[in-house]
C-alpha cells in the first residue's frame, strides 16, 4: 500500500505533559483521513511535528517515504500544504497579495496560478479588501488557498470547520471534496465535529490521550455502525441454518453471538429458532453513529 504519511511510535513530551505517546498511524495516498480526538488528545501536536514546527521526543515519521529525521524532509515538505490551528495569512494584505507572498516563499517563477486559486476558494471578487476585514470562513478559505499554492498532493487541515457558520462549513466541505476528487489531493483533517467528518472521510484514526486507539476505513466503520440486531443464543450453529433459510445477512461474533442485518421479523425468527432447538438469551438493536462509536471506543467521559 502507498502511504503518504506514516508514523511509528511517535512521541512528544513537554515539560509536564505527554502530548503524544508512541503513536502509529498510516495515511493512504488519495484518502481523506479523519483524525478524530477530544480537545487536547494530541491531534495538533502530531500536525506540528509533521510540519516541522516541533521536534519529536521519540519515535519516527516519514513523509512520502522520507524519514522525518533525514535532511531531505525539507524537500518532502514541499509536496504538502497545511493549515495549522488558524489560517496563516497576513491580515494587512489582500487575498491576492497573500498568495503572491506564498508564491515567493515557494520560489515559483510566476504568479500565473494566483487567479485560479482565488477562484477555487471563491475569493476572486475580494479585490483590495484586506484579510483583516474578511469573515472567519473567508480567512479559512484563504488559508487553504495559501496551503495549496505549491500545488501540493498532501493537504493537512487542523480543525478547518472551527468557528464557521453552517454555510461556511458546507463551503469548506465541498472544497475539500473537490480537491480530493478533482486534484487527487490526499487530505488529513483533524476535527472533533464528527458529524461533519463522517460526510468526508474515507479513513479514520481515533486518538485519545496521545495514543492511536484505532485506524479504520470508512467502509469498515459503516459496517460496524450499521443498523443490526445483536443476538445471544445457546448456539450459533442452528442460528446460521435458520438465517440462511430466511435469506438474511448476518455475521457471527462468537459461538453464541451474532449480528443480523436488515429488517428482522423478531416473532418469525424466534419461532424458527425454537423449532430448531435454539434459545435466544438476549436480543439488542444496535445503530451506532460515528459519535457513539468514538465514545464507546475511548470510553466517554469527555467531548470529542
Amino acid at each position, binding site marked *: 500500500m502507498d502511504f503518504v504519511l506514516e508514523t511509528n511510535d511517535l512521541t512528544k513530551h513537554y515539560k509536564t505533559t505527554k502530548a503524544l505517546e508512541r503513536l502509529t498511524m498510516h495515511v493512504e495516498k488519495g484518502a481523506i483521513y479523519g483524525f478524530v480526538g477530544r480537545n487536547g488528545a494530541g491531534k495538533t501536536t502530531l500536525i506540528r511535528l509533521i510540519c516541522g*514546527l516541533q521536534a519529536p521526543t521519540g519515535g519516527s515519521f516519514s513523509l512520502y517515504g522520507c524519514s522525518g529525521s533525514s535532511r531531505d524532509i525539507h524537500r518532502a515538505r514541499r509536496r504538502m500544504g497545511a493549515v495549522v490551528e488558524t489560517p496563516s495569512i497576513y491580515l494587512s494584505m489582500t487575498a491576492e497579495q497573500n498568495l503572491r507572498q506564498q508564491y515567493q516563499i515557494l520560489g515559483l517563477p510566476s504568479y500565473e496560478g494566483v487567479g485560479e486559486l482565488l477562484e477555487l476558494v471563491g475569493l476572486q471578487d475580494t479585490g483590495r479588501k484586506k484579510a483583516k476585514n474578511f469573515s472567519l470562513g473567508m480567512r479559512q478559505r484563504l488559508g487553504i488557498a495559501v496551503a495549496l499554492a505549491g500545488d501540493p498532493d498532501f493537504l493537512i487541515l487542523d480543525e478547518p470547520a472551527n468557528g464557521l457558520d453552517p454555510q461556511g462549513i458546507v463551503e469548506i466541505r465541498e472544497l475539500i471534496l473537490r480537491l480530493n476528487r478533482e486534484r487527487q489531493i490526499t487530505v488529513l483533517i483533524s476535527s472533533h465535529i464528527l458529524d461533519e467528518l463522517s460526510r468526508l472521510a474515507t479513513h479514520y484514526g481515533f486518538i485519545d490521550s496521545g495514543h492511536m486507539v484505532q485506524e479504520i476505513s470508512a467502509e469498515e466503520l459503516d459496517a460496524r455502525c450499521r443498523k443490526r440486531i445483536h443476538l445471544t443464543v445457546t448456539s450459533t450453529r442452528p442460528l446460521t441454518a435458520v438465517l440462511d433459510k430466511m435469506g438474511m445477512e448476518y455475521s457471527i461474533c462468537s459461538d453464541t453471538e451474532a449480528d443480523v442485518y436488515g429488517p428482522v421479523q423478531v416473532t418469525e425468527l424466534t419461532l424458527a429458532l425454537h423449532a430448531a432447538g435454539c434459545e435466544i438469551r438476549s436480543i439488542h438493536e444496535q445503530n451506532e453513529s460515528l459519535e457513539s462509536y468514538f465514545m464507546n471506543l475511548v470510553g466517554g467521559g469527555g467531548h470529542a
Partner: protein
Amino acid sequence: MRNLLRANFFRMRRDEMFWTCFGVVLACSAVFMFFWCREDLSLGLAAKLEEYYFNMVMALGLFDAMFAAMFLNAEYAEGTIRNKLTAGHTRREVYLAHFLTVLAASLLIMTAWLIGGCVGIPMIGSWGFGLAGWAHHVLIAVGLTVSFAAIFTFQGILFSSRPATVAVVLTYFALLLGASTVENILSEPEFSSGVVMTVDGVRTINPEPNPRYVSGTLRTFLEVLRDLLPTGQAIQVQNLSVLSPLRALACDLGVTVAFTLGGLALFGRKDLR
C-alpha cells in the same frame, strides 16, 4: 533563502511600520536640522554641519526596535512563520532571512536620517571634517545598526508573545540607559578643576585627583563595554568622539556573530505553535 528574502522584502515594501519609521526619521532629521541651523544663523554662530548632523543617530535604534518588533511578531501572531517551514525552508534560512530583512530595513531607516540631515548643507555649508570624516562616522553608524539588527532579530524571533514586542523596544531603552551610565563614568575628569569661585572672586588652586575617576583595567573594561553597546557607539558618534573606530567595528562584528549564532542555535530547538 533567496526566496525567503524576496518574500520578506515584498512584505516590507507594504509594511506600514517600516514606512512610518522611515517617514518619521526623514522628517525629524530634516526639520530638526533646519531649526538648529536657523537658530545658529540667527545667533551668528559659525557651527559646522557635523555638530548637528549626527544628533539623530541616537534615536535610530528606537526605530529599528519598533520595526523589528512589529515585523517579526506578525510572523507569530498571524502564524505565517509556519508557511515558511511547511514550504520546506530550514529554520536556519528563516532566521537568517529575517535578520537580513531587519538589517536592510534598519539601513534604509538610517538612509532617511542621512538624507534628511542634508537640509543643513545649503544653510551652513558642508561637513567641516570633509567627506572622509563623514564616511568615517557613517561607517560606525552602519556598524552599530548591524549590531542593533542582530540583537532585535534575536529577541523578536525567540520571544514570540505579544508582550515580547514591547520588550524589544524596552531593550533599546535599557541599552541606552546602560550606555549613558558607562559614558557618565568614563567622562569624569581625572583631576578636579584648578579654578574655584569664592566670595572674593576667582581663585586658582592646585588640581586634586577626582575620586570618581576610573582608571586601569576597569577603565579599559568600561571602554570596551561602551563599544560593545551599540548605544554606546551612538553616543560617541553623536559627540564626534569615536576613540577607536577599529575596536568599535570589531565589537559590532562580535555582537552580531554572538547574537546570530546564539539565535540560530536557540531557534533551531524552539517549539513553534
